[in-house]
């Protein structure tokens, strides 16, 4: 896979570190009890088959956090943006 980093251009995927699904939001509440929200966030996954938004870190390059829209069934990449941009707009 080639990933088009907004800062570095087309780079091979092995320069990047994968984190996973970018859609789930980290719960705000800090509770001492285990809440369903936290359990869901940490342990459960939609495990999308098809187009997924996911975090990739350009750890072997400019070290930017990126969000890709990638098809998990075909590995085709449809779009890339930076993580801050994704957080602002909620889309790629």
């Amino acid at each position, binding site marked *: *896979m080639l990933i088009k980093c907004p800062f570095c251009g087309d780079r*091979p*995927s*092995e320069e990047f570190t*994968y984190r*996973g*699904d970018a859609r789930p939001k980290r719960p705000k509440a800090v509770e001492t009890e*285990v809440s369903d929200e936290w*359990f*869901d966030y*940490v*342990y*459960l*996954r*939609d*495990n*999308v*088959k098809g187009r*997924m938004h*996911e975090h990739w870190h350009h750890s072997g390059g400019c070290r930017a956090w990126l969000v890709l829209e*990638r098809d*998990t*069934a*075909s*590995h085709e990449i449809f779009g890339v943006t930076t993580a801050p941009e994704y957080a602002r707009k909620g889309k790629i």
Partner: protein
Amino acid sequence: MSYNIFSLARNALSGHKNWQPAWREPEPKASYDVVIVGGGGHGLATAYYLAKEHGITNVAVLEKSWLGSGNIGRNTTIIRSNYMLEGNNPFYEWSMKLWEGLEQDFNFNAMVSQRGIMNLFHSDAQRDAFARRGNAMRIHGVDAELIDREQVREKVPFLSFDNARFPIQGALIQKRGGTVRHDAVAWGFARGADSRGVDIIQNCEVQGIKMEAGKVVGVETSRGYIGCNKLALCAAGNSSEVAAMADMKLPLESHVLQAFVSEGLKPYLDTVVTYGVGHFYVSQSDKGGLVFGGDIDGYNSYARRGGLPTVEHVIEAGVSMIPGISRVKILRSWGGIMDMSMDGSPIIDKTHIDNMYLNCGWCYGGFKATPASGWCYAWTIAKDGAHELNSQMRLDRFRRGYMMDEKGMGAQPNLH
């Protein structure tokens, strides 16, 4: 028909023209006592043990493709029980014991070969970790030996012992480990289940789960509606998809793992060796090909094919361990979809739905577990509760905080 010397002689005399198919191809019935979703190794083993151990024979195994088309036909065929944790070790040792009697049990030659498995270590710290693992195994009654560098050299003299950064210091070996002909495992369990009355229905994809009053009543499939009293999910890499039909979200990610086989070589490697530097494991098949693999590619995938960076990484690790294979050609590579769980350990359990059961989360270690997985899952389905062997492989362990994390990686499945 039993396979034995007499049936072989009888069929030889008639020119091998009268062998019967090993299993039927029945039309699905309107309903079954138990419907198993997934005709891979674990699903077929479950059907086999349901019939054999519990007398439950009104069972259907629904396979969306052809029998054995998934991970049972895509793995690197290694069996071992060198686990450390309490909830895992007795289970995998039970699997090893079932492997040891399997061929007689299901009357099929699965070519179980206990050629041993050798895990190399390259530093003092790694040796200590392996010694600890070996001791944990021995406490559970499993064979394990720590051998030094010269003992490794006697067995596999062609390894790179004097690698400047990672010299081989020794190995942890389990002599009862080895390899099994993986396709024959699927065929043996399928034949054994079929002959006891189980219907194996191929090219039958489950498309929906029908619920009434909080219970499963049947499944919609590509070959029509099939009713059931109990539904057992066993869909490996597609578990999340199937569970979503019952509105369940699982602690799983699907990842692609690649495996490789080289051109045929003369007998060269008579054991299984795993590398302690990179992730690389290799054995030699009876046809002569080196069968090997490494890590998962590391990103979510349902594609059943991986990328070249992982191919390169695995082969680099292999050549670093056995420099002599640098000019051996790769014949084939392929990928399978792993149901990676949040702690690297599997799930065999009931679900919150009364008559629905779940078997998943095998990560990339499901093949060796095939007999015990089927055996324990069949028990769980028949008795509506876990056997002691799978009593810690619970779905709710993540919520309760009882992880079984052999590698200590946490809820980041691509690192397990």
